Structure formats: C-alpha cells, structure tokens
C-alpha cells in the first residue's frame, strides 16, 4: 500500500508520458502529434514537481512561522521549461502550417505518398 501511494504520482506520470508517446508514433496527423508532444512535456513537468514536493512542506516563499519548504530547484527548471515549451511548440506548429501550405495536407501518410510520386 505504501509503495502504491508513494509511487502513484510517478506511475500516472508514466501513463501520461506513454499516452503522449503513443500519439506521436501512432497518429498520422501532424497537429495531433504536436499535441502528443505537449502531453509528454506536461508529464515531465509533473514528474519534476512531484519530486520537489516535501511531505508537510509549503511553497518555497520564505515567511515567518514556516520552516519546511518544498525544493525550489525543480520549480525553477520547470518554470522556464513551460515558457520555452510554448515557444518551441509554436515553432512546431509554424512548421505544420508551412507543410500544409506546401503539401495541402497535414496527414503524414499523404505526405509520404506525395513524396514518393515526385
């Protein structure tokens, strides 16, 4: 029981990660693939933040009356990663838009067919 509760966060994170991974490798639509990457990315964020949590701790903003704080370092890494993630996702979506303009489709299978006939 303690193993179950102690690892629950990590296991759900892995399930989410695999959900995103599956979307990336199994779905032919490029927008869907990027959304899969987004799910994957969020699961990594949750993994880091789960590891930063200290039982009985509080948010790492120092105040009188609190002595136990959660670990601030993963928070810093993930805070910047979220904004970087948005910027890189936007770059990916921009590529998808250009692919749509060049091929007239965002379906990976159709793009392969077009590439082969050329």
């Amino acid at each position, binding site marked *: 029981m303690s193993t179950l509760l102690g690892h629950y966060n990590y296991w759900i994170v892995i399930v989410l990660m695999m959900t995103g991974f599956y979307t990336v490798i199994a779905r032919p639509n490029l927008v869907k693939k990027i959304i899969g990457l987004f799910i994957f990315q969020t699961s990594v964020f949750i993994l880091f933040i789960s590891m930063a949590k200290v*039982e009985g701790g509080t948010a790492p*903003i*120092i105040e009188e009356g609190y002595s136990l704080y959660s670990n601030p370092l993963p928070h810093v890494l993930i805070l910047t990663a979220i904004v970087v993630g948005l*910027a890189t996702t936007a770059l990916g979506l921009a590529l998808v838009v250009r692919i749509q303009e060049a091929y007239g489709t965002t379906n990976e299978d159709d793009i392969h067919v077009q590439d082969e006939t050329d």
Partner: protein
Amino acid sequence: MQHLVDIVLLGLLMITGFAIVRMRSLLAVTMLTSIYSLFSALLFVVLDAVDVALTEAAIGAGISTILLLATVALTTEYEKVPSHRSLLPLLVVTLTGAALIYGTLDMPHYGDPNAPVHRHVAPDYIEDTPEEIGVPNVVTSVLASYRGYDTLGEVTVIFTAGVGVLALLGVHLRKRTEQPSDYHKLVVLRVIAKLFFPLILLFALYVLFHGDYGPGGGFQAGVIFATGFVLYALTHGLGNAERVIPPALLGILAAAGVLLYSAVGIEGMLLGGKFLEYNVLADDPVSGQHLGILLIETGVGITVAAVILIIYFGFVSRRPGGADAQDPS
C-alpha cells in the same frame, strides 16, 4: 486531504489525456488540451509549486489554446483515420511504460524529505537566500541569481524560437487599419476588452515587480502582457493592434530583452565582479542583488512578451480565414 486532491487531479489528467488521444475532431482536442492544462496548473498548486502554477495558468488559459485554434483553422479540422492499424506502436508504448515503471520502484517515495533531490543544493538555496539575496521568494532568487546563466540560456532559446517562427511565417504588415468584418457584432466584447486590457497590463507589471515577494517574475509577466495585446487584437482587429505595437518594433524588443540581460552581466564584470554577479551593482550587496534581479526579470519579460506577440501575429496574419480573419471566407 492534499493526497486525495492530488490523486483525484492526476486521475482527471489521465482521463483527459486518453480522451485527447481518442478524439478525431481537432477543435474538440484543442478545448480538451486547455482543460488538461487547467488540471496541471491545479496540480502544481497542490504540489506547492505556486510559481510554476502561475506560469502554467498564464500560458494554458490563453495563448496556447489560441495558437492551437489558429493552427487548426489554417489546417484541417478532422484527423483522418490511419490507413493502417498496426499494433506495433501500442506494443512499443507498453514495453517502454513497463520498463519505466520498473525503474520507479527504486525511486524514493513521493514527499520523502530525505530523498537525494532535497539533500544536495536545495537546502543551501533556502538557507542562504534571506542573507545573500534578501528576497523571500526562493524560486526567484534561484532563477535570477544563483542560476542566472541557465535563465540567460532559456531566454536565448525563447528568442531563437521567436526568430524561427518569424522566418517560417513572417509578419505581414497591414497597410491600413482594417476593421474586422464582424465589427458591429463585437460591441459587448470591445467594451469588456477595454475594461480588461489596462487591468491585464497592470497585473502583468504587478507580477513582474512583485516576483520577489510572491509568485511571479519576468516569464509570467511577459506572457500576461502579451495575452493582453492578444485580447486587444481579437476584439479591435489585427490592423489596430499592429498600429499600437508594430511588428518591426517587436523584433527589436525581443532582441533588446536578451541584450538587457547580457548587459547586466557585463556591467557586473566591468564593475569588478564576475559575469552576472549582482553584488557589485550597488554599494550594498543585497541592494545590488535586488537591482540585478529586477533588471534581468525586466529583460526576460520584454523578450517573452515580444516573442509571444511575434508568434501570434505570425499565425493569425498567415491567411484570411485564420483565428483573426479580416475577410469572411
């Protein structure tokens, strides 16, 4: 109680994740993605990461949904059923997942105060921040001061991504201030937007300058600031928004933020310290730290806001029929 909320939220996240994979309507998926990010922000609040939650809230509530909407509007609304159904992806995913779960068995339990993560540098950061930096928010002090190099790198990545979007999509200047075709229908929205627009910008500044004492900082402030302008563009037309903040200026601003950050670092070197050492910026080390953190957070905020606006303008000015269509198609 915290555990219960944690478990329920993770369950909701998992269900939403499955639904996102299953649905074929990409607009529906976009909406579910925004709900997904709501849940993750809530989870960050429960896990004590208030700064992270603020960032996720600022991004997930507005700009990421809008970007996905714009992309779906420019591409297709429905995902095709894959022509071949193979079990290979499912097998790969199951095996990888099983291996990863096997790996977690050696990890310290969730919330364990003696986990290796909590024993290395984090206690020093928490203990030394009040004397060395003098700001209550440890996340800000680590972000801006202890790990300033890191953040400079991240800001550069964001800047590069903005340049990439600019190269891929470009920003088309509009000659005149066009009114949206449905201008008359948007009266209510315009009035409310006029009410909210200054408040959002004010709140962005609050988040920027209050970042030392509560959740907040340059990244969040930049996102909120940009979202305010997105609201303006949505309700008053892209042409008007581009007149308020010209795309050419945005490129300069995006670079200026990174330059401000680096300039603070070099200023420290010129005053006899190391790169990004703020202690030498003022007579007293703690006020030097305050000044340095404020300046680099401002730089971060400028870059983030400018890059997000570049991205937004790039997407919506791509073709009529997009999220901010000027002509009905």
